[in-house]
């Protein structure tokens, strides 16, 4: 089965944790996860400055690792990310901001990638905040 996930929960919310575990479980069962789309407060996952205490889960790194191991696409909505202050180097330069903070493994793109995921996936699952 080909899954696509939408994560609108922020990293500290219960559903954000469920999204990661669901994705791991799907992959372990031999399913394909074509794309994970981060939208609304879910875009905070992509912030490289995310620094939770050591005894708490670090979802920013966990997703990046999972993406590296399984070749997942971690897509972050550009409009939602700009509004909340997560920028890649290019965007930061264009917006004349002093720094950028998009984590490795994450890609900034548009809502077209969400529409495409909804169209192509056999199963589309939302983890809402």
């Amino acid at each position, binding site marked *: 089965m080909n899954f696509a996930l*939408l994560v*609108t929960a922020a990293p500290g919310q219960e559903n954000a944790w469920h999204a990661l575990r669901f994705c791991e479980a799907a992959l372990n069962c031999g399913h394909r996860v074509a794309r994970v789309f981060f*939208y*609304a407060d879910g875009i905070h996952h992509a912030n490289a400055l995310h620094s939770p205490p050591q005894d708490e889960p670090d979802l920013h790194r966990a997703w990046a690792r999972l993406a590296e191991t399984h070749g997942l696409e971690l897509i972050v909505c550009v*409009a*939602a990310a700009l*509004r909340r202050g997560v920028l890649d180097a290019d965007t930061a330069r264009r917006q004349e901001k002093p720094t950028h903070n998009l984590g490795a493994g994450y890609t900034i793109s*548009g*809502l*077209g990638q*969400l*529409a*495409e995921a*909804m*169209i192509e996936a056999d199963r*589309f699952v*939302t983890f*809402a*905040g």
Partner: protein
Amino acid sequence: MSKRLLFIQHRPPYSDDRATELLDALLVAAAFGQTVTVLFQDDGVWQLLREQNGQALERKTLLAQLQALGLYDVERLYVDQQSLQERGLGSLTLGLPATPLAAGEIAPLLAEHDLVLRF
């Protein structure tokens, strides 16, 4: 390939960005040629108030953006009648021509779509 997508607006219009963000997502899906239906439910029915004005909060008026749905061929709009009644809005003229659905009509609406998006 065209899928039938149901977007559920269940957030109030101005409490945060989620109502606008759901609208943006559904407009892009419609622009991608998908068949898009919208259901207003729970606090999402506040989005349909005719006299709303976002300027008091320095926000764009959401209803004005919702009125663009027709330009994207999004013509199937529904509103949960029970959500309206619970908020004392049952007899109000709404700002969009959304068809009221009784409690028993919601499940069949969900069932006829390939995908439901709500956040």
